[in-house]
């Protein structure tokens, strides 16, 4: 699974490019880089076609696979940012989806408002806060699909890499933390057929020869 790399000057937010090379970050970043790159599209296509073909899009197959890959390399799940007990005891607002060493990781394949909230939450996991922090991170990574992949994999919501980069630029003054937007590329090796609501199977991913 390829992603947009290297980081261009225009989206080198808070100098994230050099933060990724810091000795305390680089080993974890290398693991993350290899884990994402190690995901094979044929595997994802098969996972969708055999386990999730009742769904319109490939988002569940992709997110499950990324989740499991990150788990395999030792990322912790649903880690609280703050040590302070928040208003509700079952509150999951300020939790990091995955934490790999000093790297806070999240993904956004849904609504753009969710994407903006996740950018804010990643920044919250990094920036010192008046509340004591249980798991302060040094870097945030938000995994999103590029517009080309979003269309090919038929994600119905509009969150994409292009929007995320624009939001990061617009909110640069608020999001004062190094955040890397990891944009998953369209491999252009498949086409997805949506048979329509109520149909079984709902969809099928066809490999292009």
């Amino acid at each position, binding site marked *: 699974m390829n992603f947009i790399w290297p980081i261009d000057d225009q989206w080198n937010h808070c100098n994230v490019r050099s933060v990724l090379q810091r000795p305390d970050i680089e080993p974890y970043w290398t693991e993350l880089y290899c884990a994402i790159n190690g995901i094979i599209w044929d595997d994802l296509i*098969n996972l969708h076609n*055999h*386990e999730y073909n009742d769904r319109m899009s490939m988002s569940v197959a992709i997110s*499950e696979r990324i*989740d*499991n*890959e990150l*788990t*395999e*390399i*030792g*990322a912790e799940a649903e880690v609280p940012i703050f040590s302070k007990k928040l208003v509700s005891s079952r509150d999951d607002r300020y939790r990091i989806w995955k934490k790999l060493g000093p790297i806070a990781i999240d993904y956004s394949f849904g609504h753009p408002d969710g994407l903006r909230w996740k950018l804010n939450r990643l920044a919250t996991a990094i920036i010192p806060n008046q509340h004591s922090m249980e798991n302060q991170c040094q870097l945030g990574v938000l995994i999103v699909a590029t517009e080309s992949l979003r269309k090919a994999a038929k994600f119905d919501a509009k969150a994409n890499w292009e929007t995320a980069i624009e939001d990061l630029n617009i909110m640069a003054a608020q999001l004062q933390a190094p955040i890397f937007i990891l944009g998953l590329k369209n491999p252009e090796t498949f086409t997805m057929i949506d048979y329509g609501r109520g149909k079984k199977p709902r969809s099928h991913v066809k490999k292009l020869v």
Partner: protein
Amino acid sequence: MQLKKARKKLASIVASLRAQNQSESELYRKAKHWIDVESKSHWDKMDLGEDVSELVKAIGTSAAEIVWEYNTMK
């Protein structure tokens, strides 16, 4: 064991064994093999339109056995 849950559980077992420097162990090999091979072994039969419900149960049971082995190892 449901396959989706099993995939996640075995991924966490693999991570845990790696953290304990046990990536050469038999249990690690079994867990990796289950993730990479066994958990997908019913897909070819599905493509042929065969009923795979019993096979899926067996794959789930195999995952549960690995989880049990991991739990009793501690």
